[in-house]
C-alpha cells in the first residue's frame, strides 16, 4: 500500500439553517481544498461524499453526481456514503484505500449536510432513522434518548452518582464552548458556564439542552493524493497513517458492553495498529461529542482514561490544552456544530489546520505531530483515523 496524504483542505462556516444548497456548500469547501492543493477540478479522478439526509432536507438523492458536475470534475466516478453521523469518515477511509491501492493518485473527499434547515421535529425524526426502525424506534427512541440511557447506565455500572456525572458532563460542554469561541467556523462562538448547562431545559433525562450538540448546516472537504504527488503539491502533507471502521447492532444487542460502545474499541485498535502508535502518542483528538456524556464514554474506549473515570479528564484538565491529550480544540460537535454528513471531514480538516499552526491563537495546540479522529454514526458505526504530520 502507498502512503496517502491530505494535500489541501476546505471548510465552510457551520451554521443554523443555511441559505445555500448542499451542492453550493460542498463545492465552496471543495474549491478551497482544490485551490490550496494547486490543482484544478480536472485533475480529480474520483469523488467520495458523505451525506445522510439530503433526501429529506433538499429532496435530493444522487447528490454526489451533481456535486462533481457542478465543480467541473465532469464524468468522474462519484459515490455517496451514508453511515449516519460517521458518513464523511467512511468516505475518507474508502478514498484513502483507493489511493493507497494505487488505483487513483488524486481524489476529492468530504461531506455536507443541511439538517438545521429541516427544523427540530423533522430533524429529530430523521436522525432517529439511525435507530432500529422496527424494534426500537416505535418505543420513542431518539438520539438524545439513546445517550440519556447510556448516561443512566453509566451511573449504575460504574457507581458514579448522577449529580457528579452531570457536573462532569457540564464541564465537557464548558470546555467545548471555551474553544469554539475562537473557531471562525463554529456555530456557537460563545462561552457558557456549568450553571448555564445545569439550568437549561430537559431534553431527555438526564440530558439537558446544553448537553446536546445542535442541528447544523455546513460542509468540509479535502484533496487526498499519493505520497509522490502530494510532495509536489504541498510542503506540508498530512499523512493518513491509520484507519479503522466497525459496526454495531441495535442498542439492546449491545448489552454485553454498554455503556461502552464496543465497535469504537475495535475500530480505534485497527487505526492505532496500522499507524504503529497507541493512545499515549496522540497529541490532539477530535472526538464525537454529539452529547456531553458521549465524550466521557469515548475517551475511555479510545484508551485515554480508565472505564468509569473518563469524566475526571475534564475535572483535572487532562482533556484540555496542555493536558494529556487536547480534546476537541475545534469546539467539537457541541460548539462548532454537527452537520452530520460533514462531521468526519471537519474533524480531519481541523487537525490539519492544527498541525500547520493555522488554528486561531486561542485554540492552537503547540507542535501537534499525531492527531486522532473519532466519528460515531447512529448507535454504532465507528470510524477512526490517525493523522501524522509529514514535515
Amino acid at each position, binding site marked *: 500500500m502507498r502512503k496517502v496524504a491530505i494535500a489541501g483542505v476546505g471548510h465552510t462556516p457551520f451554521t443554523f439553517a443555511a441559505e445555500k444548497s448542499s451542492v453550493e456548500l460542498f463545492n465552496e469547501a471543495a474549491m478551497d481544498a482544490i485551490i490550496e492543493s494547486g490543482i484544478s477540478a480536472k485533475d480529480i479522478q474520483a469523488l467520495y461524499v458523505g451525506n445522510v439526509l439530503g433526501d429529506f432536507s433538499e429532496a435530493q438523492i444522487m447528490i454526489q453526481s451533481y456535486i462533481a458536475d457542478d465543480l467541473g470534475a465532469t464524468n468522474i466516478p462519484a459515490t455517496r456514503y451514508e453511515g449516519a453521523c460517521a458518513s464523511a469518515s467512511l468516505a475518507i477511509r474508502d478514498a484513502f484505500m483507493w489511493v493507497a491501492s494505487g488505483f487513483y493518485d488524486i481524489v476529492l473527499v468530504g461531506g455536507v449536510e443541511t439538517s438545521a434547515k429541516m427544523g*427540530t*421535529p*423533522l430533524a*429529530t*425524526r*430523521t436522525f*432517529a*432513522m439511525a435507530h*432500529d*426502525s*422496527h*424494534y*426500537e*424506534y*416505535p*418505543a*420513542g*427512541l*431518539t438520539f*438524545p*434518548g439513546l445517550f*440519556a*440511557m*447510556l448516561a*443512566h*447506565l453509566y*451511573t*449504575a455500572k460504574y457507581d458514579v452518582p*448522577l449529580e457528579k456525572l452531570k457536573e462532569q458532563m457540564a464541564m465537557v460542554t464548558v470546555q467545548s464552548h471555551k474553544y469554539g469561541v475562537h473557531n471562525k467556523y463554529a456555530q456557537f462562538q460563545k462561552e457558557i458556564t456549568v450553571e448555564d448547562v445545569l439550568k437549561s*431545559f*430537559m*431534553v*431527555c*433525562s*438526564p*440530558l439537558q439542552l446544553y448537553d446536546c450538540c445542535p442541528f447544523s448546516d455546513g460542509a468540509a472537504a479535502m484533496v487526498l493524493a499519493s505520497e509522490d504527488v502530494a510532495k509536489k503539491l504541498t510542503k506540508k502533507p498530512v499523512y493518513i497513517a491509520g484507519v479503522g471502521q466497525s459496526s454495531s*447492532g*441495535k*442498542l*439492546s*444487542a449491545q*448489552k454485553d458492553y*454498554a455503556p461502552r460502545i464496543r465497535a469504537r474499541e475495535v475500530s480505534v485498535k485497527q487505526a492505532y495498529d496500522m499507524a504503529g502508535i497507541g493512545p499515549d502518542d496522540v497529541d490532539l483528538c477530535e472526538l464525537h461529542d454529539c452529547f456531553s456524556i458521549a465524550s466521557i464514554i469515548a475517551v475511555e474506549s479510545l484508551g485515554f482514561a480508565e472505564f468509569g473515570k473518563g469524566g475526571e479528564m475534564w475535572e483535572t484538565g487532562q482533556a484540555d490544552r496542555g493536558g494529556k491529550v487536547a480534546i476537541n480544540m475545534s469546539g467539537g460537535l457541541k460548539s462548532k456544530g454537527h452537520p452530520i454528513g460533514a462531521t468526519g471531514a471537519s474533524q480531519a480538516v481541523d487537525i490539519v489546520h492544527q498541525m500547520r499552526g493555522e488554528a486561531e491563537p486561542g485554540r492552537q495546540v503547540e507542535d501537534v505531530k499525531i492527531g486522532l479522529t473519532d466519528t460515531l454514526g447512529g448507535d454504532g458505526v465507528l470510524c477512526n483515523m490517525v493523522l501524522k504530520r509529514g514535515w
Partner: protein
Amino acid sequence: MEYKLTFKEYNKSLKKGKLLGLKCNDCGNYTCPPKMACQECGSTNMDVEQLKGSGKVVTFTVSFVPAEGRDAEVPYTVVMVELDEGPWLLGNLTDIDPNKVTVDLIGKPVQLGSKMKALPGDVYMMGDKEAEGAFARPTFVFA
C-alpha cells in the same frame, strides 16, 4: 435460509401481549428481538419460543422532545429491560408519572402489561405489510 421469526410474526404476537423470542439449540441462550443468527453464539439452529415478558430495568430516560408526529406522546418513559431469559428489550413504562421518574428506577422489576401500546407508523414507515397497521411497543408495568 428462511427467516425463522420475522418482524411481522413477532409484531403480531406482541400486539396481543405475547412476547416471542428464539431459543438456541446449540448454546441454550435466547435471542429477542429475533435475528437470523443467535445473539450469543451465531448459530442458526434456533426455535421460536414464548418468553415470560418479565425482567428488571437496566436503564431509562424520560423524553421531553418529540420526533415529528409524536408531540402528543411527551413526556414518556423509555426503559431498557433485561428479561429474565437474558436478552435486553427496549420498551415503555406506563404505570408511573414520567415527571416523577428518578434514577431509582434502575433495578426495579417490571413485566409486560396486559395492554400493549402501538405506534400507527408515520409517513416514513411503510409498515403496512410488515406491521399490519401498527408497530407494537413492548409496554411494561411494575411487577
